[in-house]
């Protein structure tokens, strides 16, 4: 069923009786050519591109809960491609380009809003680093503009420009960045994948991987055994748990990241804004809530909730940037479990087991990567070669000394 404005009018006039479910709820088949573990944004995008762009059949997405119930439903919805390093920037710029065409591609309103992202700087040294980053972005085909204080004042007059400790000196803007309605991403990809024949199997937890003679044969699940030609893990947050089923240890720790939303306010924050002296990022949702977050809590955790010291830290950063934030009441806060990798960058690669593939280590940058992650993972699954923008995301890069460490803090996952 194609969605359109005309269709909305027709349904409105006929009592909305013509809408059907957006995807099927099939029974598992005995076997598939491709089994994707994880029905989050990345897994559903992978299935969609595998079916649509690579023409593959007999694909299943296995989700232990409900689709979109993990990190794609728990993030701060920001999209951007303002990375520095060669291994990252082409990939994230490719992702941003896919975001720009996503709604037409999927015939689904994902509320992609390129309202711009602004990273503030507060010192001369930070300015120089941002100039370098901006140049790296432009060299990779992205957009970047250095804004001075007057330009920022015109758009964000309520920031604490004269903060005694961290005065705002300027900012690096990416006008094509913005936000996307997170749930709609999962639903849009699910509907698209389903319409190309992908079986989306919910409440289907993978409990074992059947491996014979160094090759994957299938997966044991809570809904029975499912044979598979290729199995693709795509469960960031729980990667270590799934790969442990194949006795694979990963360069990953799971950490909890908290996010917050205020009560609904009238439009106040036109774009996405980040504080350069602490870790704080904020945007306003279309419902009016200020959506914001900061650092991970910093200790291994699989609990989808964090602790109060981090709440205090995030709110202090917010107040240092936007003093008016103190007048808004916090409506909700929640936590998501992140795959924190050893260099802060993701992994999209084969494993040493034939037919077993791995996608994870997204740290807390996975949402913006969803379309490119799906496309690149599908490319790898379909062709057994990496997509040209994802050649650096190898599983063995730590052994080979090819880390992609944007922050330069080394093998300490809670610092990335």
């Amino acid at each position, binding site marked *: 069923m194609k969605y359109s404005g005309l269709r909305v009018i027709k349904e409105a006039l006929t009592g909305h009786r013509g809408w059907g479910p957006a995807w099927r709820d099939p029974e598992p088949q005995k076997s598939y050519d491709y089994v994707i573990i994880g029905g989050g944004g990345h897994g559903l995008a992978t299935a969609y591109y595998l079916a649509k762009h690579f023409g593959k059949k007999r694909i299943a997405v296995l989700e232990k809960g409900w689709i979109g119930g993990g990190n794609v439903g728990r993030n701060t919805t920001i999209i951007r491609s303002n990375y520095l390093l060669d291994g990252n920037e082409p990939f994230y710029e490719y992702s941003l380009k896919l975001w720009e065409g996503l709604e037409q591609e999927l015939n689904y309103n994902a509320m992609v809003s390129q309202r711009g992202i602004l990273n503030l700087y507060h010192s001369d040294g930070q300015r120089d680093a941002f100039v370098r980053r901006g140049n790296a972005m432009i060299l990779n085909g992205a957009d970047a503009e250095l804004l001075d204080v007057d330009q920022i004042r015109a758009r964000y007059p309520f920031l604490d420009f004269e903060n005694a400790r961290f005065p705002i000196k300027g900012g690096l803007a990416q006008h094509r960045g913005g936000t996307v309605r997170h749930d709609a991403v999962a639903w849009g990809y699910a509907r698209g994948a389903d319409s190309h024949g992908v079986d989306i199997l919910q409440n289907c937890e993978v409990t074992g991987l059947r491996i014979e003679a160094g090759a994957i044969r299938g997966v044991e699940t809570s809904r029975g055994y499912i044979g598979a030609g290729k199995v693709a893990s795509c469960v960031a947050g729980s990667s*270590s748990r799934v790969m442990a089923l194949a006795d694979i240890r990963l*360069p990953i*720790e799971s950490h909890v990241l908290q996010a917050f939303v205020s009560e609904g306010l009238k439009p106040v924050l036109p774009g996405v804004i980040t504080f350069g002296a602490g870790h704080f990022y904020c945007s306003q949702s279309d419902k009016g809530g200020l959506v914001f977050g900061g650092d991970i809590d*910093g200790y*291994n955790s*699989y609990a989808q909730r964090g602790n109060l*010291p981090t709440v205090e830290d995030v709110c202090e950063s917010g107040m240092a940037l936007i003093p008016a934030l103190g007048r808004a009441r916090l409506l909700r806060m929640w936590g998501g479990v992140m795959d924190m990798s050893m260099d802060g960058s993701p992994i999209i690669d084969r494993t040493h087991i034939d037919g077993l593939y791995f996608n994870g280590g997204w740290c807390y940058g996975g949402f913006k990567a969803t379309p490119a992650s799906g496309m690149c993972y599908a490319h790898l699954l379909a062709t057994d070669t990496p997509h040209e923008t994802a050649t650096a995301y190898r599983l063995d890069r730590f052994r080979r000394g090819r880390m992609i460490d944007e922050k330069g803090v080394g093998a300490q996952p809670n610092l990335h």
Partner: protein
Amino acid sequence: MMIDHPLLGPRDAQEFTYLGDASLIDRPDWQAEDAVDQFHDYLYLRDNPAGEHRELWFHEVGDRSWLVVTRNTLTHQITSVELARDVARSRGRSK
């Protein structure tokens, strides 16, 4: 979270910084034949369990001791706290 320090009693986890898995105590022998492989695994690979986890915390704004905390990563419940020095000695790591 409260960490029941073996010497100082219950302290707020905010006083500590977190390093990671307590297996970092077991530094490989740099003279071993396969030292490169051992150090790769030591530096980069983690069990990352969902459940009981032994981990290193540093009492940075306290007595600056290293602790081995046993904590459940699903519930954040702490079940035991030891001085890392004692743990290391019991494994023959330190004199």
